[in-house]
């Protein structure tokens, strides 16, 4: 028994109760009936969850409520996911809900989806930090799909356009129906055994929602997570995100998009390579200048060794220049033409060209351009520039 001088404050008691309740409360799914549904002006939801023998007060905080998809209807049977907590101000027990699913509409499949998702979350497999980037220049890509579907064809079409030198290694698997999940897991295991694979596309063509089950299967998701190479999912369903999409390193809406993500675009690479060629050509000209300068510095005391060295440099330069190819001359001509075009454009913009068309330019004694009436002060001198020269002038009136 504690003495009165050691009496707790109410706040301390409230804190102790809160700490003790919240320390032991794990998030859980609860099934019950919604009663007393109210919405606060600040956007929080308050309601009770009830069954035959008990009732628990619940809260959905405003920041969570914004993502709520299920309308909260009085009397509706729901699944609510949340965690017990204590509202300090009144030391009242509250079940803080973060998700609500209507029990009536929810089938066994959706429940399984939630269970699997929670299991993947718990193991950190949906962690964004796990996502691996795709290699910049893939040359061997594994494709897990049904060879009877359109996926391989779609990927080839994109590859021909973007990066034709790619090699595709297809591992056949059913993608829907009985046994599809097991086949996908098996196919992913085979991909893991292939050598020098840059990434893996797993996907299917379009299809109905009921056909997505294999891509929500826990073993498939875990096989994707375990893949030694980055995985692009292409389940071909814009609306429903599957768990395979969430586990994959990159999610594509369609197999074609997956191929675009996985393959570089040769036009972009060509621009980069072209810039490097220009750089080397510039370097070639510098080398010629350098060699000449070196030669002049050593001319006076030229020995046979130096002469031989100079010849060796010449031979190497000549050979390398020859390998650089005739494009050098073409590139020079191209640049010259571009310069001429640019020159013509600059000329069209220059004031002299405008004056030639009959306009005149007025400037005051300081050379400032006089643009509007207010710039002209009565009696002030100014110069007027026309196409072939300037004349001195004076403002008569204003």
């Amino acid at each position: 028994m504690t003495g009165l001088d050691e009496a707790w404050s109410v706040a301390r008691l409230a804190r102790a109760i809160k700490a003790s309740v919240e320390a032991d409360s794990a998030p859980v799914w609860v099934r019950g009936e919604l009663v007393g549904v109210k919405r606060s002006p600040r956007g929080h939801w308050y309601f009770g969850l009830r069954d035959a023998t008990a009732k628990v007060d619940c809260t959905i905080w405003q920041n969570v409520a914004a993502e709520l998809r299920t309308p909260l209807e009085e009397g509706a049977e729901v699944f609510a996911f949340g965690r017990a907590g204590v509202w300090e101000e009144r030391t009242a027990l509250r079940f803080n809900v973060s998700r609500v699913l209507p029990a009536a509409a929810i089938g066994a499949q959706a429940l399984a989806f939630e269970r699997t998702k929670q299991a993947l979350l718990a193991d950190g497999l949906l962690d964004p930090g796990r996502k691996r980037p795709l290699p910049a220049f893939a040359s061997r890509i594994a494709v897990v799909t049904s060879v009877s579907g359109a996926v391989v064809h779609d990927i080839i079409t994109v590859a021909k356009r973007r990066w034709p030198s790619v090699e595709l290694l297809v591992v056949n698997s059913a993608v829907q129906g009985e046994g599809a999940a097991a086949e996908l897991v098996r196919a992913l295991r085979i991909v893991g055994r292939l050598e020098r694979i840059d990434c893996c596309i797993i996907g299917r063509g379009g299809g109905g929602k009921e056909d997505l089950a294999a891509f929500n299967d826990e073993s498939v998701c875990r096989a994707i997570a375990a893949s030694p190479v980055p995985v692009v999912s292409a389940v071909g369903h814009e609306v429903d995100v599957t768990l395979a999409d969430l586990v994959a390193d990159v999610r594509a809406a369609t197999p074609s998009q997956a191929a675009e993500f996985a393959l570089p675009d040769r036009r972009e690479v060509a621009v980069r390579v072209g810039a490097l060629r220009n750089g080397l050509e510039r370097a070639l000209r510098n080398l010629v200048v350098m060699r000449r300068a070196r030669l002049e510095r050593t001319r006076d005391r030229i020995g046979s060794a130096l002469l031989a060295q100079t010849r060796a440099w010449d031979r190497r330069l000549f050979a390398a220049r020859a390998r650089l190819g005739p494009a050098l001359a073409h590139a020079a001509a191209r640049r010259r033409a571009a310069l001429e075009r640019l020159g013509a454009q600059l000329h069209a913009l220059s004031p002299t060209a405008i004056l030639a068309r009959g306009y005149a330019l007025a400037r005051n004694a300081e050379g400032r351009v006089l643009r509007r009436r207010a710039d002209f002060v009565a009696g002030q001198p100014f110069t007027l520039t026309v196409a072939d020269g300037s004349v001195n002038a004076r403002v008569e009136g204003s």
Partner: protein
Amino acid sequence: MTDSPSLGDDLRRLEEIVRRLEDDSLELETALALFEEGVARLKAAELRLTDAETRVRQVIDESARGDGALRVEPLDA
């Protein structure tokens, strides 16, 4: 067969070569060697951009668990 990291490596190395060649204080001998390497890598990179047939092959494993011998066959798709 093309090797995947080599194009990326070629481009990065080429960028480094071009950058180093812009340095006027470079020894002629070094500059020449860099230039020769650059031309070779440029040729390799340009080769990768030329038209090539996309190869499509199917990997087959007769085992139930996917841990048997792997066979690779052409695939008409």
